[in-house]
């Protein structure tokens, strides 16, 4: 009799323990799920969501961050002008001891480097260029960093972005229009990859510039090669 009692007792206590564990687990999971649901709901209800075109613009930024070199084609007074832009690091320059991320733009035999702070015409030495024109030229040349910076400024300020369907190269594309005070930028992007295929800055005398990722053969052209002295200052990333 004693033996049979001892074999029953542990079994019932084990069942009780399992029941307790299941009940506790279910209560814990229920409470955690309830709070998680409330936390998610609070975020979803309270915080505004970005617009779909703003998210598309962010996707274009993501595509640009993965690029090292872009080639472009622009029509200037009925003549096709092609450029190539490669990411580069520049420095040390003057009082700035650090190296800066920038872009090296080559249009025919003319070369210039563009950074966040300044632009330089590349000859036998670097000569600083004033005014907004070099930055605009870098954007139109499709320089990934210059374009990123320009789009990024619009997105930082949550400037309104409009998206419209357009046809280009026989395919359906998206035209993104950015507007902030007097500044406007238009981008045509591939809707599958969000890669920019054309860019325009709303400014007198600037038309569309057509962009494509640079290929290896584009990067071996001689104007991209710099003198040894300049290579100490301008280093191409591509």
């Amino acid at each position, binding site marked *: 009799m004693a033996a049979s009692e001892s074999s029953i007792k542990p079994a019932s206590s084990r069942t009780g323990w399992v029941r307790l564990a299941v009940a506790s687990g279910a*209560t814990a999971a229920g409470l955690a799920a309830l709070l998680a649901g409330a936390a998610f709901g609070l975020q979803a209800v*309270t915080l505004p969501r970005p617009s779909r075109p703003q998210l598309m613009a962010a996707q274009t930024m993501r595509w*640009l961050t993965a690029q090292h070199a872009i080639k472009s084609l622009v029509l200037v007074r009925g003549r096709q002008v092609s450029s190539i832009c490669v990411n580069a690091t520049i420095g040390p320059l003057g009082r700035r001891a650090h190296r800066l991320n920038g872009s090296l733009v080559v249009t025919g035999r003319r070369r210039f480097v563009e950074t966040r702070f300044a632009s330089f015409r590349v000859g036998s030495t670097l000569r600083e260029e004033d005014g907004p024109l070099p930055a605009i030229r870098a954007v139109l040349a499709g320089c990934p960093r210059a374009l990123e910076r320009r789009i990024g400024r619009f997105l930082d300020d949550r400037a309104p972005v409009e998206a419209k369907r357009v046809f280009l190269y026989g395919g359906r594309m998206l035209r993104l229009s950015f507007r902030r005070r007097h500044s406007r930028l238009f981008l045509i992007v591939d809707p599958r990859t969000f890669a920019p295929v054309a860019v325009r800055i709303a400014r007198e005398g600037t038309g569309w510039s057509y962009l494509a990722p640079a290929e290896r053969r584009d990067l071996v052209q001689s104007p991209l090669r710099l003198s040894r002295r300049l290579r100490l200052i301008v280093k191409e990333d591509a």
Partner: protein
Amino acid sequence: MSMWLRERRAILAAAVGSRVLVLGAAAADHRLHWPHGPVPVHGASTAHTLSILSFWDGVWYRTVAEQGYLLIPGRQSDPAFFPLFPIVLRALEGLGLSFLTTGILVANGAFVIGIVAFYELSRRLVPVDVARTSAMVAAFFPMSFVFSMTYPESLVLAALALALLFALSGRWTLSAVAGAAAALGRPEAMFFALPLAAIAIGLGRLSGSKGNGRAIGAAFAPVASIATFPLYLGWALDNPTAWNGAQRAWGRSFSLDGIVRAFHQLSARGQSPWLWRDFAFCLIYLGLIVVASRLGISWPWLVAGAALVLLPLATGTFMSDSRFGVLALPAYWGAGALARRRLVRLPLLVVSAGLLVAGTMTIPLANP
């Protein structure tokens, strides 16, 4: 009630008095235009008397409150900032105050609640005189000016202290809500799931299956709450990893050699000398946590406090560690133990208050 208040008069006076010092220093900074520093982030207001309290990350929290999140690849963007503070700012938008004024009111109000809750929590874990000194040191701690900035730290302090206090009282549902709120404010709050779990195991056993379940639920609440942030980002931005992406752009990606890189950065050329402030406070926090261990504070609390100070170093920098550490509650118990004697307490509080004013006035010069 009056008895309750009378007992806590010194704590309340310390909490309010320290805020008066911080707000006064910020106003003096504005009035005297000293020290001169560049406007730290574009979009930071400089017109308000207390503008400097909204500098640095405050601008980003305001952007989230005003316009929501947007990950901008390749640039510093706002998904790096947790949503509790912007949610509160947005919820109070109806009061008709500016985000800056609302932010400062919320931060300072939450701080006073946080200090009182911390005192109540401390009373249950350390002797009363140590608890009182700890709360006073926390109020006047040199880096505690961040609790007055438009940052989520004070909300997190209040929520954390309440979560732990409720847990010690066996009020699990309230503890779970407060713990979830804390984790929605700053991810570091998650470390305190460890002491919450220890309390749950210790007390939950006594309270039956339902109580036991709620106790475990309270311990898991911060983790569950944190998990909702990537889910929300996935829903709002189509990118559940937006937080990691933004952290990388802020130079905050974790790596195994992070701590080694953090030490290298200290001696690297051209680094901000303010890094040494962060390094010094990192050592102070760790030292105080060691002292807290001698008070008999159990290991889950100590591990949570140490993790809060040490884990950010794995991102390769000491930058802002002095701010992250203000939520390392065991460090204040260590300080309370060291300064429990009046002879030590008074000079310590005076020096702390001086450094608090100096810290506030140098906000424009360095990101806390």
